[in-house]
């Protein structure tokens, strides 16, 4: 099951080292600052909005022939932005087909899921699904 992309695997381990929910939240706040490709507020639109989040969250995917898959995103709540950053760092530079094959199960391994309320979890799943299906569009692998 630990067949996660390397960067994601590292993040998972980072979270597994946390002692409790407060520490995991602290780490998420940390990650929120490390969003590799932030999406500035001015670019937040209805189209790139993630539905099902209570707070505002926006995301876009870029696929670059040379550097691979990238997520641009931003959120007003830090915990949301933290989750977004985990994903963005975890998949940064992968091929679209690698991203398309990802499952959201890594969140379980991070032990963060229990700390997410259902509405937050839904928001996260929506986010994940946006990214996965976006990646799928660009993937050459049919099926």
């Amino acid at each position, binding site marked *: 099951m630990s067949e996660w992309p390397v960067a994601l695997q590292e993040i998972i381990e980072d979270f597994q080292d946390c002692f409790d929910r407060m520490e995991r939240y602290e780490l998420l706040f940390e990650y929120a600052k490390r969003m590799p490709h932030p999406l500035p507020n001015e670019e937040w639109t209805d189209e790139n909005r993630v539905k099902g989040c209570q707070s505002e969250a926006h995301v876009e995917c870029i696929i670059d022939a040379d550097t691979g898959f990238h997520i641009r995103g931003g959120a007003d709540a830090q915990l949301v932005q933290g989750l977004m950053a985990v994903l963005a760092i975890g998949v940064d530079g992968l091929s679209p087909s690698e991203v398309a094959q990802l499952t959201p199960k890594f969140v379980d391994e991070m032990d963060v899921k229990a700390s997410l309320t*259902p509405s*937050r979890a839904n928001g996260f799943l929506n986010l994940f699904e946006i990214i996965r299906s976006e990646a799928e569009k660009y993937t050459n692998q049919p099926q």
Partner: protein
Amino acid sequence: MEARIEDKALLPSTMALNLNTIRADFPILSRRLEGERKLVYLDNAATTQKPQVVIDAMNDYYANTNANVHRAVHTLAGEATEGYEASRTGIAAYFGAPRDNLIFTSGTTEAINLVAYGWARANLGKGDVVLTTEMEHHADIVPWQILSKECGIEIRYVPLDRETMTLDMEAFEIAVEDASLVCVVHTSNVLGVRNDVERIIQLAKSRGKGGEGAHVMLDAAQAAPHERIDFPELGCDFLALSAHKMGGPTGIGALFTTTDTMETMKPFISGGDMIETVTLEGSTYQKGPHKFEAGTPRIAEAFGWHAAVQWLDQHNMEDVHAHISSLARWTAKQMRDIPGIRIYGRHDLETTSGVVSFLHEMIHAEDLAHLMDAGGFAVRTGHHCAQPLMEALGVSSTARASFWIYNTMEEAEAFVNHLRGVVERFS
């Protein structure tokens, strides 16, 4: 004359249900009445009893989870929201429907009012005909009368065929052509008759509104406890139900409607939770069922109803129906032999539900109900919220015994015997 045991051959399928375990699930069935008399509950068409799992689900909600749902971050609110929305999913699935076809209401009555206020007021007007029937419960008559005063729709009633005690389908075939909306009771709460709803829907869709197709609303209050209803398969536009008639709690019910039709509905009850944004100038509404669910919802009730459909789902509803229907038909058959008793309904049809309406030519229905109650038999008497049907039957009230899943052949026999005794002693 004692109830003839050989007639129990009418009851082949009862075997499929384990009545002892079923009865053990309902705490009230072990209640003793005045003088240690056993309760024989035969008022199921008014409301059914609740299995312990339903009571427990609500208990557990209040003792461990209770919080307001939606827009919530804390643990309890998260659990409550998850459970509430899982209830929507589970209940909808029981009726074969996607979760966003289910609008929670306080019962069948509010569900039909939602069709009247939410859909009909937005989509019908002068010149439109709402076609309903003489067999309806008041819940499917009065809202249309009120609407007709307000916006000029015309109401027409398909008559009861007084010979066959079923809807006059020839009259329906003609009347449907002018109808924009057809509102029919799926299964009668007085006669136990199941209308041919498949044909009614098919005719309404193919010939309604001059061939354009009419919308169809089914009042399934009495059908849901009797048969497995698949909302998408039926193909009607609206389906109204109450939880309390199918083992669930009071205070909750549903209107099922299709996504397309839902989009043509105006908000009805409004307030919090159904809006997207509110400004002093105006508001925008949520999409889907939430648009019609204003305010704090019936949270505990949703948990309870969910437990009820899960409980029902343990059983094959065809077996359940066969059991109930054959109890009612056996009982009706025995009762016909009691001097002076007259039965209303069609108890020669296998589709008939668990309802037996009756009168005695000498003993007033209300006296009859008291005299039955003295034996522990809970039967109802009155117009059963169906005065136009009473009128059609030429009576002002009936007594009504109605069976459900937990009733037994022994109870049916005891009922018939007590009734025979009452008639001998009091007429």
